[in-house]
């Protein structure tokens, strides 16, 4: 872990908007859902840092650090979630970021528990409602830093 002294999770009150990094990992062109989620989160008062397609775990970690993000949201539709999602969680841990990872897209039911055990905060699928999307992101952040 590369700890930086003096940087702990922010104890934000409700005054400050949550900052969310949204991205797609690797070669997966399904960005429609991610765009929907971006608007949903914005309408819920969050600041969405939209990275879009073809990101790597490194580029996402770098963006999180620079943007001081509270949570990472990934959208996955290319059946790569069992490798990519745990890899993202691990990259976040290695960087000592302490931000939760929420994912959505196409994840078969039997894979959900595997991902949760790997440290993913929440998994949402097709048809997830606006309320569910917002609640999942808020809960992930609250769970990570109960101070909020």
């Amino acid at each position, binding site marked *: 872990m590369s700890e*930086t*002294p*003096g*940087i702990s999770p*922010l104890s934000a009150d409700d005054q*400050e*908007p949550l900052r969310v990094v949204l991205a797609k990992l690797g070669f997966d062109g399904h960005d429609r859902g991610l765009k929907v989620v*971006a*608007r949903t*989160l*914005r*309408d*819920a*008062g*969050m*600041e*969405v*840092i*939209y*990275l*879009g397609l073809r990101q790597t775990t490194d*580029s996402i970690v*770098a*963006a999180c*650090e*620079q*943007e*001081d993000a509270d949570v990472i949201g990934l959208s996955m539709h290319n059946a790569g979630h069992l490798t990519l999602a745990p890899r993202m969680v691990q990259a976040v841990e290695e*960087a*000592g*970021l302490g931000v939760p990872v929420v994912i959505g897209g196409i994840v078969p039911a039997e894979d959900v528990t595997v991902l949760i055990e790997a440290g993913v905060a929440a998994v949402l699928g097709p048809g997830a409602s606006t309320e569910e999307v917002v609640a999942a992101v808020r809960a992930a952040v609250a769970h990570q830093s109960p101070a909020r």
Partner: protein
Amino acid sequence: MSAPLLDELFESARTGNRRALGRLLTMVERQDDNAVMVSERAHRDAGQARVIGVTGAPGSGKSTITGRLAAVSGAARPAILAIDPSSPLTGGAILGDRIRMDNNVSSSTFIRSMATRGHAGGLAVAVPDAVRVLDAAGCDPVIVETVGVGQVEVTVAAAADTTVVVVTPGWGDAVQANKAGLLEVADIFVVNKADRPDARGARRDLELMLDLGHRGDWRAPIVLTTATEGEGIDDLWSEIERHTSYLHHSGELIRRRCRRRRSEVADRIELGLRDRALRIIDDQSGESAMVRVERHELSPAAAAEQLLATLIPDNPPEE
């Protein structure tokens, strides 16, 4: 936050620690309890970086240009501050500038997205502080991207050493409302999307306007770019460097920065006064004045006059 801890954060930021720099920026962005200390600490070391503002109509190509500029600058640690409007209804924002930059910049470029967050005039103080922090952390150049739609945004972009105004072919109609404002602040014009028809026409329009309007010994050059292809970006960087050396030689740099800090202090006073104004209206004397206003015994103007006197005496007592 304690002073040693703050020193440590700055030290980390200076050695390129992205998290430390990211956190310092959050503190000034929130203008929280630590912000004054952070700003103060940053101000000690600031003043080294070239500050470049990039503004223009929505979608004109500012982010693409900004990312390319950071790349061709050849600088070791360029920084980009990309500002987007918050939704006035929900306070949320989609900050989508990185998507146009990421592919072009190297990993040593520090990019921070910032939402306007609606607080009146807040942007006017948060942005100079953010630039100050990036500068003190050793980033250079610091490029600030803002949408040139309203007066505040233009003013923010203009709070730079060099202001680049981006237009596109057929731009005249798109930014009609704020044309004069944009023209006034431009040190350099870019006609982007030069791959589209009539880029030359746009250049001609600008030339004509400059013929009519320009004052002083710097005439804003006009550069044609196709940012998506990287065409013209080298020329743009050369013009920026030419402007930088003009600023140095003419003494204009010192004057500009001096003006900038004056208006920053003025903005802060204004914000502070507004805060106090709201507080004073709610306190006892304010309330009784407001009651009289409601009864039509006192006009709002007279009430304001009366309350203002309690804030700032006309003849300040000698200390």
